[in-house]
């Protein structure tokens, strides 16, 4: 039986300021298949989808949908053509009822101007029953769990009579039960001949539900594979790729034999986010956190820094138990945290380099002890020189610097507080190779000065190059702990893919 291709995207190219987000990417979808789109963050998965749904406009390439070439101009136009998207964050109205959420915008009317409430509620019930969901559809949506809400948004998308359903990270906030239910629905839809594009970073789920897998890396197509023909470990390798560059010969920090425990984390966790994580960190040690995105790395860091409050577990600093309920508590314990999304959580783009660098020092000193402009300028100049921040002067707006230099500004901000513990969440993502090596060098330099570092990264080679020990996270749990020196990438990949540690220690 010949496959009916309902979608073909050929040679898609999208240029963003400074980066090529997509470079000659091909993608196709057959009616009645689930096609997973995999890749690390920034690989171009979302960009490709946004191109298909008309959010971004492509610079080159063509999209053939249902035998005709199309150029989607807006999400609404895409929906009208039969391309529906269910986003990770639920795009429904929490204050409306379930039934209304499914139908709002095309509410059935009776006698012209009156809404047919009975009809709406009955039809919504029927529709959800097809998905084996029996709930009271007259309740407001916010009464139900995220899983049900996700299902409702799928019901809405499906009722629009879509030919292509795009699920963009639909499972990231669902528990196992809910994921299973979602997959039942997906299988049901697949049977009816719908083409489904499934974006996820949960490899297991991709394998369970998909027929084909397409891997993107750095905006390029790595390849598409039949799920039955490829092993998980091979897939992870394809996703991460090999970074051949090694500009600086970096030396991992040497931990003194008599080094004391700087940080002691014991069974720290939040239900549904991270299960009990325990580890210790010695003074001057660099510990790497590996694992796919969403595996609980960032969440763990945020708990230690007090961004989210842990529900259970203890944190000891220098063998003394401390209570960290807010980032300020953490800062007062001499911690520093460079968050993952530097644009959103790190830099303040409209402030100058000087202001960004002196921010935390100022907040530590308190409101009644303001730093003079001169002090700030001295501090900024010192770190601009020390870190080699490429800026014409300290008064330039941080938002106008390149990614690598922005990252250095954040590093400078925290270095200025002279921390004991530095947590770096993906400090090297999205910056060019030279700047990457520079950041790594600075990180190691700080270790040598006695700072303990937690280094979270998706790039295994840089973790292996720098870390004394590697903690591997998988599905919101600590899956294993490997020595940095003697481990190979394969060992880490093995833990990520299979969840069994080869060199775990207590």
């Amino acid at each position, binding site marked *: 039986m010949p496959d009916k291709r309902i979608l073909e995207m050929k040679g898609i190219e999208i240029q963003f300021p400074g980066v090529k987000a997509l470079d000659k990417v091909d993608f196709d979808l057959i009616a009645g298949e689930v096609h997973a789109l995999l890749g690390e963050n920034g690989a171009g998965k979302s960009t490709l989808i946004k191109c298909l749904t008309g959010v971004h406009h492509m610079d080159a390439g063509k999209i053939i949908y249902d035998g005709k070439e199309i150029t989607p101009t807006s999400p609404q136009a895409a929906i009208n053509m039969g391309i529906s998207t269910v986003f990770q964050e639920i*795009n429904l109205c929490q*204050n409306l009822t379930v039934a209304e959420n499914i139908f709002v915008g095309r509410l059935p009317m009776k006698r012209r101007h009156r*809404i047919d409430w009975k009809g709406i509620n009955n039809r919504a019930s029927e529709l959800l029953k097809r998905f084996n969901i029996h709930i009271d559809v*007259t309740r407001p949506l916010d*009464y139900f769990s995220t899983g049900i809400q996700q299902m409702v948004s799928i019901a809405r998308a499906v009722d629009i009579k879509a030919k292509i359903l795009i699920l963009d990270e639909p499972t990231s906030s669902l528990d196992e039960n809910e994921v299973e239910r979602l997959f039942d629905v997906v299988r049901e839809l697949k049977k009816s001949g719908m083409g489904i594009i499934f974006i996820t970073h949960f490899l297991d789920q991709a394998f369970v539900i998909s027929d084909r897998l397409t891997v993107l890396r750095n905006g390029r197509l790595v390849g598409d594979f039949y799920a039955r023909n490829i092993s998980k470990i091979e897939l992870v390798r394809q996703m991460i790729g090999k970074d051949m560059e090694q500009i600086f010969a970096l030396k991992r920090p040497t931990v003194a034999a008599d080094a004391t425990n700087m940080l002691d984390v014991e069974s720290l966790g939040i239900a549904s986010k991270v299960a009990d994580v325990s580890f210790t960190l010695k003074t001057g040690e660099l510990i790497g956190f590996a694992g796919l995105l969403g595996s609980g790395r960032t969440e763990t860091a945020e708990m230690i820094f007090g961004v989210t409050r842990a529900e259970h577990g203890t944190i000891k600093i220098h063998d003394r138990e401390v209570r960290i309920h807010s980032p300020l508590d953490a800062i007062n314990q001499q911690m520093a945290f460079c968050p993952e999304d530097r644009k959103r959580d790190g830099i303040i783009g409209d402030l100058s380099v000087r202001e960004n660098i002196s921010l935390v020092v100022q907040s530590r000193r308190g409101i009644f002890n303001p730093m003079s402009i001169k002090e700030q300028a001295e501090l900024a100049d010192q770190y601009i020189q020390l870190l080699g921040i490429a800026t014409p002067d300290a008064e330039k707006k941080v938002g106008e610097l390149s990614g690598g230099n922005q990252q250095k500004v954040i590093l400078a901000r925290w270095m200025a507080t002279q921390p004991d513990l530095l947590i770096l969440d993906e400090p090297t993502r999205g910056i060019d190779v030279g700047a990457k090596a520079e950041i790594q060098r600075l990180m190691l330099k700080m270790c040598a000065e006695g700072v303990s570092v937690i280094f979270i990264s998706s790039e295994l080679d840089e973790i292996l190059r720098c870390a004394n020990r590697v903690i591997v996270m998988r599905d919101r749990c600590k899956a294993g702990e490997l020595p940095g020196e003697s481990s190979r990438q394969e060992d880490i990949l093995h833990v990520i893919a299979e969840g069994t540690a080869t060199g775990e220690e207590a």
Partner: protein
Amino acid sequence: MDERTMRIRRQSFLNRVLNPRYIMVYATIGVFLLIYLFGALMYGDIGFTTIRTFLNMFIDNAYFGISAVGMTMVLITGGIDLSVAAIAALTGMFIAYGNTILGIDPFLCIAFAMVIGIGMGALMGAMIHYLNVPPFITTLTGMFLARGVCSMISSESVAINNDAFNALAGWKVNVMKLVDGVWVKVKPIAFINLNVLLFLFVMLLGAYLLKSTKFGRNVYAVGGNEQSAKLMGLPVARTKILVYAFNGLCSVLMGVSYALYVKSGWALALMGGELDVITMAVIGGTLLTGGVGYMLGTFFGVMLKSIIPALITFNGNLLSWWGKIATGALLLLFIGIQRIVVTYSAKRKGKAADCVSKKT
């Protein structure tokens, strides 16, 4: 109909009644009844419980009530409108100045005011949506503009002396009762006037629009999550502009109603009235953050706000600013209730999640 469907049906009726969002409406009704009971016990002997007292509360506040209908809709979209009282004053001024000084038919003046009021509302809505100016600022601009134009027309109070208009203002229906087969007026004499009818009509219209029209549901959707509403393909721009335009109409009607009440136009009429109107809507359970609000609640919000001055009048010893203090206390109480309800439903959400996964 299988057993499960039956259960869901039964649940759904109970849930509809016990919907946490209605709790605020119930609270408003409950507090109103309590205060009314208090008044009845304290001042029942001097006539607090008469129909006349009850209807007078309507007559004295009908104009605010009319505006509260439009305001409720604006608040549900997550916006706010500070220009209502100013547009009402402008309406009064149009009628008074237009008729008394220029000799134009008062109903022509009202029609003109409607065009201006609806136009201003639509314009403000468009500014809020397309230029992304916060509603607070946009409508503040509208307020100053309307007040300014008012003072420009006349800085003094202008009386209205039109026979037809006065006839409307004086029109009333007495409450009658059947005594020995003959209809007689109740004692003390109680009546409703045009303002009360207008208020009830606008209220019912508002309730119908919100509950049973696409427009009304879009209002809730926009207030619930504007981004989602846009992604769901709802006409967000049209909805917002229409809501402000409708509110403009309500403001004009408030102005007409107030003019019927005081039979004059004055640049400073209803000064600060927009805050009274917002208070009524909020006491009635409308969330300032948008997405939640009911006309029934607003109706009782209006009643609650009106019963306080009535109580103070009956007491006789209290100064009128006690009314402000009592209103403040009420507002605080209801904001407290709202917070509790919101937190409570957030907690319940967790529980609901549990039930669902157990059923599987």
